[in-house]
């Protein structure tokens, strides 16, 4: 019976990991946010792709298709670049709504969370 306990604990951890799962394609941006005293940013791909095709951000706006490779600063967003192309109170909410994007738990790492292979090996 003793030998089962290890498996049971492993099973519990397994179910815990899977029950705390972000939506597929959710990106956490935390290169600067927490260093500058704001919670990490969460970018949900699912929400945006209902409203915009990939090409809008990844072609017109110039977002690189790799988490962590875009050096986005708040100043650039305010100047209308990157997120600021739409988050300007015309197409989407403006930059004064800090909390709506900066809504992550403290200490999150910048990467794509959620998804099957993002939990295993890989470089996201």
């Amino acid at each position, binding site marked *: 019976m003793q030998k089962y306990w290890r498996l049971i604990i492993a099973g519990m951890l397994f179910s815990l990991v899977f029950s705390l799962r972000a939506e*597929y394609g959710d990106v*956490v941006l935390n290169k600067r946010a927490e260093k500058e005293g704001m919670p990490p940013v*969460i970018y949900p791909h699912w929400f945006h*792709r209902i*409203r915009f*095709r990939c090409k*809008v951000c990844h072609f017109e706006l110039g977002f690189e298709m790799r988490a962590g490779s875009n050096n986005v600063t708040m100043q650039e967003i305010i100047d209308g670049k990157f997120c600021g192309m739409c988050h300007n109170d015309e197409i989407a909410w403006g930059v004064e709504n800090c909390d709506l994007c900066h*809504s992550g738990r403290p200490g999150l790492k910048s990467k794509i969370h959620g998804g*099957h292979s993002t939990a295993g090996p890989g470089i996201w």
Partner: protein
Amino acid sequence: MLKIKCSNIFFTLFLMLILLLPLISNAASKWKSLADDGIHDPESPAIGVLQEPADALSKLPQDTSGNMVNWVKALEQGVINPRTNIRPETKVRIRNDDVFLEQTGEMPVVRFPHRAHTLWLDCKNCHEKYFISKKGANPITMMKILQGNYCGRCHGAVAFPLTECDRCHSVPRQKLEQAKAESRKKTQAENK
């Protein structure tokens, strides 16, 4: 002796239940609410303001992996009509032909549909940065894809995951010529 056997069976069942728990809870709700997704701060004022995944995604054509949504179907059926451009001068480009990748070992041949991809993406997202526009010029391997290169740039991160083997490896070798002929016909019709 009998007592030990009974407790063994009990523990095996208990163990199976625990291991199946994630599946059971996933079946109850396909999409986690923002407050429970492990990345949003449940205390954040954004919770309750931001749209919940289940609100939006449950109305779209269903799938078995990723966001549990068939995004290409959603687009082609017109359930969603996401914007193609912000700047009015941006040219929206669609390409209709298929590319067949035949060096797949014992797996069926890969049919890459340009149409499904260009509905979402522009040519420049992939060419010439990640894929050279010349047949045979791209040394793609499954290992590189699994590491996030080539197709793995999106598949496994935002597009349907790499566990869906037969959605790309979709053409049995003995039906290759037939598939190519059908593809040509379809492309010609779509180009008109």
